[in-house]
């Protein structure tokens, strides 16, 4: 097959290239026979050189007797003596010492050899991002990078994702920085929910993020810089790690058209279980009535969701310029009826070279437009799922589906039709059709860059980028929506939010060699970042205010102005100077020194932070056994400063709706100057490759502490009227191991099996919270529910708190004489942090067939389900049905007054006390450990021979979240209600996790 392909290639190339007598030409291919574009050919000792075009074709002038040197990053260099032949085809194998040649994209988009890195950086190839596609590209990295925890929001398709690298280190934000071609991207969303009950402002909704809007097809790979050292050059923004995306570059010489089409089908998986044996008493909201068979209507409620992603790309390059264009269209429907998404991505990238290639100009622009209808919400308000799950059994769900509104003659309008008037459970179809919401996002990212190669050791580059994100949330709430949620004439909410980022930099790059043994690399530069996030105008006719004319959704139909306001989340500018240097000795010892000074508008004083790192290539320094190809040890110490929330040092008076108080919410404590947070991190690591690079491993240990956390404490009465003082206090520690193990288990001609294991363990500890805060910061307040999420001194980040049974010394539940259960006050019932994470990816090749399987495991940690608790208290859960069938709940309890043992309790009495969102929630805590088959793809590469005009084509069957190998919780613990800091480790009527299966088609012309 491969030979046929080769011949085909040669035949093909022969047609396009006219023979020239004095030149040598040929095709450079990899070990599989695939052409290698961009490989270098040079005449040894000479000036001449050439690179291959997209088809792997090269042409070079040479004389007989000279030696041609063929090189390609990652492959073994070959020297071939020129003979009589004018065609030399080269097949390049995996380099025996490829680790020495690997190039890694690092901070600011600068390329560095992997061997010289003093810190951990892990890469993903572009195909990893597109093989088993997700509408949000970042969801595809789950399990593929050690130390990176990926948690999806419950906002369904188009929702945001929480990415935490090496543990939560900050009270305010733990998300990494996304960087595209060296330029930081603004990853601002319109906000995250943090209310365990649900928001009256349209429900607990996911405000989205920007990374979910990018087109994965535009990128050829991703590098994750995990530690502080790696990200020191990004300063504040990089304090939580950096994820770098590299754009696909047009290949010189040939037009290239690629197209792909992915269709997946999603089904709701891992839903709660319901009873079908009992019905509700007439008129009751809760299903605690007589026995009576019912139908489980919940499954039928969910649709099969579909996602169709079509993407096309076109690129053409010449010696001096290149152009690439891409377009992608995503069209999806969710598992909840009425939920759909439409997304269009446009991208264009242009490069040009001037003055003998000394000046390189590049420009790119990306635009994304996305519209989501009825983005799923969680919590109790505006959530159709509560009505579906909790509907009093014995009612005909289908009747209410088909008649969610009926004519009301008194009002002469169509009114909601539902058997009860409860804010937490409307008719789900009314919620879908008559509380309709629309989220619109537009994202523009434009960048210009100019690079000037002054001479062979100095180049100067300057870049400028502009990001603009607008989000619109529009919700039309019709008259007769439940009264807690809406005015009797209906309610209209329209939120507009704008975020922008302007970034500019100027960087000089120096590459010098002193003598033969010493090399010196330096990047010295300055940058400016100006960010505005969520400049919002919120129009809300309100619940008591409402609309004048029913169901006329526009501003001038508002009864009053109290719900309308403008607000800005943040506005800041950071100016920086930085320098990063690498001293190399004999290509075996590298010393990194870097430093950065930031001036941030949010803190009064500028701040400096350094990093130092050292790498030694043991395999170069000493003679190791032959089976060891590569060995390296590295160590680094770095600090990163993180400026604080803006406006704090310059407070103004402001009033929010719902409060008539005009006062600054927060200001500095008198006599104190606010400082940036400071993260310090040690990291040690070692990397080895052996057995012809068939086996490789990398181990990193890190220990970081983030001090001077910005916290707010309730202010005593003060002149300015601050509610809170912003202070620097508190400290959070993270330490852990990461192991990356790669193995080429089988490397046969016909069959190969490659595997990668990513292991990471993070131990997190909140070392200090000031006493004014009582040693705790509540990230999510309990409100009226028995769930609270807090930072507690001495505990890992993110303690889940709830209420437990009060028990005696023998572990028996204490009961009162009136039959009620004694319960504790709020106490720790779990922790959201996993003990360790394990990802195991495998790729198989068998002839033209290929298969990939990713197993993703998260071990330890806890989650709470208020969904189960509430389903129990409403008597709809399977547990309550089983208990009633069994004649009660078996308990180990004792009457506190007289010591009478109680072994069974009436099901209703038990579940109404223990269940419920405000019940004994310690009983609804589950082990978050889960192991899932995260990604599977099985496909076939077509032979181009059989497909005229086509360079490559493949088809594959793909599956995501296929099934859990192990799971304790009644829902998918990898989904969070918020991708912010709060509402973690809990499910409150979140959208069920989906299993998706589909087909992926790729063609390149």
């Amino acid at each position, binding site marked *: 097959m491969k030979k046929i392909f080769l011949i085909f290639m040669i035949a093909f190339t022969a047609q396009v290239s006219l023979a020239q007598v004095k030149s040598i030409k040929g095709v450079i291919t990899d070990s599989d026979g695939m052409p290698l574009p961009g490989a270098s050919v040079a005449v040894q000792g000479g000036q001449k050189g050439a690179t291959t075009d997209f088809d792997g074709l090269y042409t070079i002038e040479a004389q007989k007797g000279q030696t041609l040197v063929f090189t390609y990053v990652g492959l073994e260099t070959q020297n071939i003596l020129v003979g009589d032949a004018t065609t030399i085809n080269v097949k390049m194998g995996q380099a025996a010492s490829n680790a020495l040649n690997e190039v890694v994209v690092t901070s600011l988009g600068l390329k560095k050899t992997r061997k010289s890195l003093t810190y951990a950086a892990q890469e993903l190839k572009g195909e990893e991002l597109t093989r088993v596609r997700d509408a949000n590209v970042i969801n595809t990295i789950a399990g593929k990078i050690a130390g990176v925890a990926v948690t999806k929001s419950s906002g369904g398709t188009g929702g945001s994702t929480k990415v935490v690298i090496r543990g939560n280190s900050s009270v305010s934000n733990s998300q990494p920085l996304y960087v595209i071609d060296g330029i930081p991207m603004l990853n601002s969303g319109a906000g995250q929910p943090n209310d365990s009950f649900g928001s009256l402002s349209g429900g607990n909704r996911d405000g989205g993020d920007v990374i979910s809007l990018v087109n994965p097809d535009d990128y050829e790979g991703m590098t994750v810089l995990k530690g502080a050292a790696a990200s020191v050059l990004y300063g504040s923004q990089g304090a939580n790690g950096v994820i770098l995306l590299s754009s696909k570059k047009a290949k010189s010489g040939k037009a290239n058209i690629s197209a792909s089409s992915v269709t997946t089908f999603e089904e709701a998986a891992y839903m709660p279980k319901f009873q079908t044996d009992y019905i509700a008493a007439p008129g*009751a909201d809760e299903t605690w009535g007589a026995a009576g068979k019912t139908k489980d209507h919940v499954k039928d409620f969910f649709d099969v969701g579909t996602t169709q992603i079509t993407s096309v790309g076109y690129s053409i390059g010449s010696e001096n310029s290149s152009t690439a264009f891409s377009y992608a269209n995503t069209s999806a429907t969710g598992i909840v009826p009425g939920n759909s998404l439409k997304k269009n991505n446009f991208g264009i990238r242009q490069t040009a070279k001037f003055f003998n290639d000394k000046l390189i100009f590049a420009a790119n622009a990306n635009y994304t437009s996305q519209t989501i209808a009825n983005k799923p919400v969680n919590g109790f308000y505006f959530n159709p799922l509560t009505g579906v799950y909790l509907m009093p059994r014995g009612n005909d769900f289908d009747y209410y589906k088909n008649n969610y509104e009926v004519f009301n003659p008194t009002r002469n309008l169509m009114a909601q039709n539902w058997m009860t008037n409860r804010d937490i459970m409307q008719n789900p179809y009314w919620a879908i059709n008559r509380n309709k919401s629309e989220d619109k996002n537009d994202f523009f990212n434009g960048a210009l860059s100019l690079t000037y190669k002054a001479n062979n050791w100095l180049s100067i580059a300057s870049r400028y980028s502009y990001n603009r994100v607008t989000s619109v949330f529009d919700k039309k709430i019709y008259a007769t929506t439940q009264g807690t949620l809406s005015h009797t004439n209906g309610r209209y909410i329209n939120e507009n939010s704008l975020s922008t980022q302007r970034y500019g930099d100027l960087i000089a790059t120096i590459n010098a060699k002193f003598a033969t043994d010493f090399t010196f690399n330096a990047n010295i530069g*300055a940058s400016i970042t100006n960010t505005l996030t969520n400049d919002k105008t919120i129009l809300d006719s309100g619940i008591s205010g409402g609309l004048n004319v029913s169901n006329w959704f526009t501003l001038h139909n508002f009864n009053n102005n*109290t719900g309308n306001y403008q607000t800005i989340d943040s506005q*800041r500018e950071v100016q920086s100077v930085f320098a990063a240097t690498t001293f190399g000795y004999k290509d075996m010892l590298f010393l990194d020194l870097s430093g950065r000074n930031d001036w941030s508008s949010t803190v009064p004083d500028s701040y400096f932070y350094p990093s130092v790192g050292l790498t030694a290539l043991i395999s170069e320094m000493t003679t190791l056994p032959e089976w060891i190809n590569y060995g390296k040890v590295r160590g680094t110490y770095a600090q990163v400063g993180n400026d604080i929330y*803006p406006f704090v040092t*310059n407070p103004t008076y402001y009033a929010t709706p719902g409060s008539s108080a005009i*006062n600054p919410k927060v200001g500095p404590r008198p006599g104190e100057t606010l400082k940036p947070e400071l993260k310090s991190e040690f990291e040690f690591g070692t990397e080895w490759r052996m057995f012809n690079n068939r086996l490789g491993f990398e181990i990193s240990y890190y220990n970081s502490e983030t001090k001077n956390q910005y916290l707010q404490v309730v202010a005593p009465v003060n002149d300015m009227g601050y509610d809170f003082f912003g202070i620097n206090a508190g400290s959070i520690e993270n330490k852990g191991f990461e192991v990356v193990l790669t193995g080429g288990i089988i490397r046969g001609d016909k069959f190969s099996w490659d595997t990668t294991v990513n292991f990471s363990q993070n131990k997190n500890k909140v070392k200090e919270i000031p006493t004014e*805060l009582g040693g705790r910061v509540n990230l999510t307040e309990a409100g009226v529910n028995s769930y609270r999420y807090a930072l507690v001194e001495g505990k890992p980040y993110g303690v889940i708190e709830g209420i437990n049974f009060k028990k005696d010394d023998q572990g028996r539940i204490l009961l009162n004489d009136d039959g009620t259960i*004694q319960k504790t006050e709020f106490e720790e019932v779990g922790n959201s942090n996993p003990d360790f994470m394990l990802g195991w990816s495998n790729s198989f090749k068998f002839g033209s067939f290929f298969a990939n399987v990713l197993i993703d495991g998260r071990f330890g940690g806890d989650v709470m389900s208020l969904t189960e608790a509430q389903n129990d208290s409403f008597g709809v859960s399977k547990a309550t049905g089983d208990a009633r069938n069994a004649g009660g709940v078996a308990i180990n309890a004792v009457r506190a007054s007289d010591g009478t043992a109680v072994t069974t309790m009436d099901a209703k009495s038990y579940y109404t006390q223990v269940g419920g969102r405000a019940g004994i929630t310690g009983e609804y805590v589950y082990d978050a450990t889960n192991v899932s088959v995260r990604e599977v793809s099985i496909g076939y590469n077509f032979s181009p021979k059989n497909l005229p005009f086509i360079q490559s084509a493949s088809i594959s069957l793909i599956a995501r979240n296929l099934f859990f190998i192990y799971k304790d919780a009644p829902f998918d613990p990898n989904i969070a209600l918020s991708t912010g800091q709060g509402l973690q480790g809990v499910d409150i009527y979140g959208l069920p996790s989906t299993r998706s299966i589909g087909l992926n088609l790729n063609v390149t012309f």
Partner: protein
Amino acid sequence: MKLNKITKAAICISLLSAFGCTDNFEEINTNDQGITPELLEQDFNHIKQGFGPIFNNIQVITANFEWVYQLQQNLNSDIWSGYMATPTGFAGGINNTTYSLVDGWNGFIWEYAYKNVMYNAVHIEDLSKGKFDQFYALSLILKVEGMHRLTDTFGPIIYSKYGELSPTEYDSQEEVYNQFFNELDIAVADLTQRVDDGDTGESTFKSTDLSGYKGKYKQWVKFANTLRLRLAMRIVKANPALAKIEAEKAVAHKFGVMQSNGDLFKIVSPVFTNPLATISGSWLDIRMGADMESIMGGYEDPRLEGYFDTSSQYPGEYKGVRTGIDIAAKADHQNFSGIGAPGKSNEIVLMTAAEAYFLRAEGALRGWDMGGDAKSLYEQGITVSFGQRDASGVVGYIADNVKTAKAYVDPKFPVNNSPAVNNVTVAWDEAATNEVKLQKIITQKWIAGFPEGQEAWSDYRRTGYPKLFPVLKNYSGGTISTELGVRRINFVQSEKDGNQGGVDSGIAKLGGSDNGGTRLWWDVDAPNF
């Protein structure tokens, strides 16, 4: 430093920045949507802005925050006073109404009082004391009005030590009451002086005043005097001597206490709706109490039809719901009588003029100099109340010595039925015992005060009147007596989390267990006379 400047200059030049340099950092770091402190000082807005949150949070009457009012007052004192009842079986029916006190609800009583009332009152004091004392005086009256509700709910509270760092010590209720009286002294003296000097107050405070007083200092003094009278009567069993002194001081003041319905203290909410309108009208979470049906129904009280809507389930009837019953379905009782005009009005009355008369009537009964005898003050109280509610037939009503409360009948669940328990007539009987006279006064005060459950619950605890139907379900775990009802609310979770030391001091000063059965300082377990 110099080097710093050089570097800064270097960046600016090197970037040829279009954004300027760090010179505009202050501008960038300022929220455009806010107002600067300098601008806010115009019109004394920096001081006046603190009044709004106090007015709006004595009872939480903020749009979209009806649920806070529900937790702050509606699901506790509005129900424990017998005024109202809920048809909803919150938390499986095991909640405040069945004496299982719900921490997750009751925390809002504390939180909103401190966050809004106390915080702003003390902030106004900081900005105005010694400089603009009229604001200080007004803030003190509002602070006492707001915070006496809190101590009457919990007992010891943070008061004199407010603003100190954790652990913040609690004051005993006696200490708190002594401060109330002192603060009213300061306020009354200052405002009286201003009136004497010819300053009515309208030009200064009218635009800020969300009460019905339109900024008039004289009206505020009358309110302060009546508030003093209320607080004096509250402590009559704990410190009778001080009670007499303070009560007589209030009545003897030259502006006196409230006399006509124009004097009553209300929050006029121009924008927001009454939370009861939402909770009763829209959520159907609160209904007429069975005690209201029994007592007002028994009297055929002409005010009844203004107080409640007729039941949509039993057209033409005023049907109340009994508190503390077994609730199988909300639908069973949700269409009983909803709250009428007082719950729908945008004027929320926190103290009626009738109350002043009933307080004076009780004072006269106790032999204090109240400027009248008990009978006439009692009857004036009823008359003023009829006037306030636009009800007719007051003469016949006052003279009625036949009708008493009627038995309560739950048309769906006879298990909830009860014979009448508050068996007094309306007509004054000079020959009756003081105890019966007091029962009549408090019964009429109770009717007149509707729907302000907080004060009615306090009176019920102090006097035991009017007699209310006991709960049928008591899930207090033995801490609260079915016969005596809830005496207080236990300290809140947020304080236990953030100020355990303070809570410990509060428990020590409470002198009993931190539960709903422990009596407060003024709630002395002794006869009324």
